[in-house]
């Protein structure tokens, strides 16, 4: 177990180093930021001064090492566009993204769990068909379009809920649902197929034969093992949630990391792009590490061969 965790930890760090390198190179490749921040009349000397001031005159590997060293200490430099420390922007934006993500995940789990289990238990009924339709739509509806349509119908025509910003709990409902839609569909589908498989297994038949009541069989015996594939994919769904947030936050004018990323990319704000992508990657990798550890706890088989395919 300890060896498995250590291997996964080293792998995670290696992944992050590789990612930071890619981020650094890509952010440098997005064009010269100085052409955006300096006035049209700026002279060569102005450019040279600004470059020196921002550390852009150093060799690339020096810039990279400086970037990593400072990033580890929480110093992501100064936003070229907002002219404020990037860490301030992150502190401002990260909590509202996490709040939206947590709300969305909670709603998704609350909907996906009962629906997935019941769809498997009542296979072939109207409920199962309904679940299938939700699942199919969840993977085919473009998030940005769902957002716009919800804003128009629920916030515009019906005036039931507010559309943009994050001032009150009611503001969470539309973006939270839009963000969670895909996860609901995916989790439910996964749980349904994994429940179907488990319900067909020998030990469930044994439990039934020994006279366990149907609710006990489903919720106590079957669900525990049906959860294994769900836990494996939790990391994947988390990454999807983070990515989808860029679109959702842009549509709903949500002041989070996703919209910060979008704004930074359109303004070629190097330090902010690096910071947002790096922080996102650290969160995704950390969540995946936790998920894998959980997985190893639940399913001992995985510890035997850490290099599972």
């Amino acid at each position: 177990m300890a060896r498995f965790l250590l291997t996964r930890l080293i792998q995670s760090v290696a992944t992050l180093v590789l990612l930071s390198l890619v981020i650094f190179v890509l952010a440098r490749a997005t064009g010269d930021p100085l052409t955006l921040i300096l006035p049209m009349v700026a002279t060569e000397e102005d450019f040279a001064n600004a470059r020196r001031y921002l550390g852009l005159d150093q060799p690339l590997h020096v810039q990279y090492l400086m970037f990593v060293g400072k990033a580890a200490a929480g110093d992501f430099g100064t936003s070229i566009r907002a002219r404020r420390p990037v860490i301030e922007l992150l502190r401002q934006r990260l909590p509202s993204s996490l709040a939206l993500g947590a709300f969305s995940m909670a709603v998704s789990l609350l909907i996906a769990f009962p629906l997935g289990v019941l769809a498997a238990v009542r296979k072939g009924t109207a409920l199962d068909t309904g679940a299938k339709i939700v699942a199919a739509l969840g993977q085919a509806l473009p998030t940005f379009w769902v957002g716009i349509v919800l804003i128009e119908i629920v916030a515009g025509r019906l005036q039931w809920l507010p559309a943009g910003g994050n001032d009150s709990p009611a503001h969470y409902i539309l973006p939270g649902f839009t963000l969670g839609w895909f996860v609901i569909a995916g989790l439910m589908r996964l749980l349904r197929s994994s429940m179907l498989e488990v319900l067909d297994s020998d030990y469930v038949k044994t439990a039934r034969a020994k006279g366990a009541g149907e609710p006990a069989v489903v919720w106590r015996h079957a669900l525990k093992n049906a959860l294994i594939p769900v836990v494996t994919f939790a990391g994947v769904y988390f990454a999807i949630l983070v990515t989808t947030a860029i679109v959702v936050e842009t549509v709903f004018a949500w002041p989070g990391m996703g919209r910060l990323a979008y704004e930074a990319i359109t303004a070629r704000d190097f330090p902010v792009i690096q910071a947002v992508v790096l922080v996102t990657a650290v969160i995704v990798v950390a969540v995946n590490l936790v998920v894998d550890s959980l997985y190893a706890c639940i399913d001992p088989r995985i510890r035997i061969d850490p290099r599972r395919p």
Partner: protein
Amino acid sequence: MKRPPVVSAAIILGFVLLALLADVVSPGDPYEQTLRARFTPPAWEAHGSWTHPLGTDRLGRDLLSRIIFGARVSLAAGVVTVLLAGFIGAGVGLVAGYHRGRVGAILMRVTDATLAFPIILLALILAVTVGPSFTNVVIAIAVILWARYARVIHGEVLALMEREFIAQARVIGCSAGRIIVVHLLPNTLNTLIVLLTLQVGYVIIVEASLSFLGAGIPPPAPAWGSMVAEGRDVITTAWWVSFFPGLAILLVVLAFNLFGDWLRDVLDPKLRQQ
């Protein structure tokens, strides 16, 4: 055995035909602006007319024509990206599965690192880096997407490597290249085809999201994602500008996903869990 997905197949075929024959079947020119006819509602609404069955946009361009020509963009982006990513991913998965030592470990590390990268974030950076264009969108998505194929194919190959016929091929002196191309590749083709089909819809959504965010296919080309974006600000007064392109995305993606599901059940049932 599940019923063949006739409706899905028909929808896919329909959109493919529309894309191929856009010049013939489109009622008008997707680029022609008629400012006097801007924001004409669909034909069945008050003030609508059958000259523009689905209405017009901000510049008075015919929406139906733009959606028909947009099918070219979306389908081409979906298919080309998936083929490119599948080619790279299958290559990496095959080689990594065959060389299980250091080469395999390094390749799979790179694969995992790629998988951890939020696809839209990278595609956004790449699209802005090299400028928005069809080619760049395809490359931006494929650069991340290949890792998914590599993971699954790698798993398949690991299982195949334990089989007798691979050991025999080695004994009679087959080269690594020959074993990979002649013995391993054909045995992973079913999986690959299923994955490719299942991912077309996903790529169409990612391309549309990028175009929506302004980092995809640049205007005035009729891309469904940017058409939705164009109607975003006028959704309360002219809902059809955003609604119909979004509906087109939904239909095509749904059709590809359902068709892919069926294909998986027929060709490769063990992929179900993935």
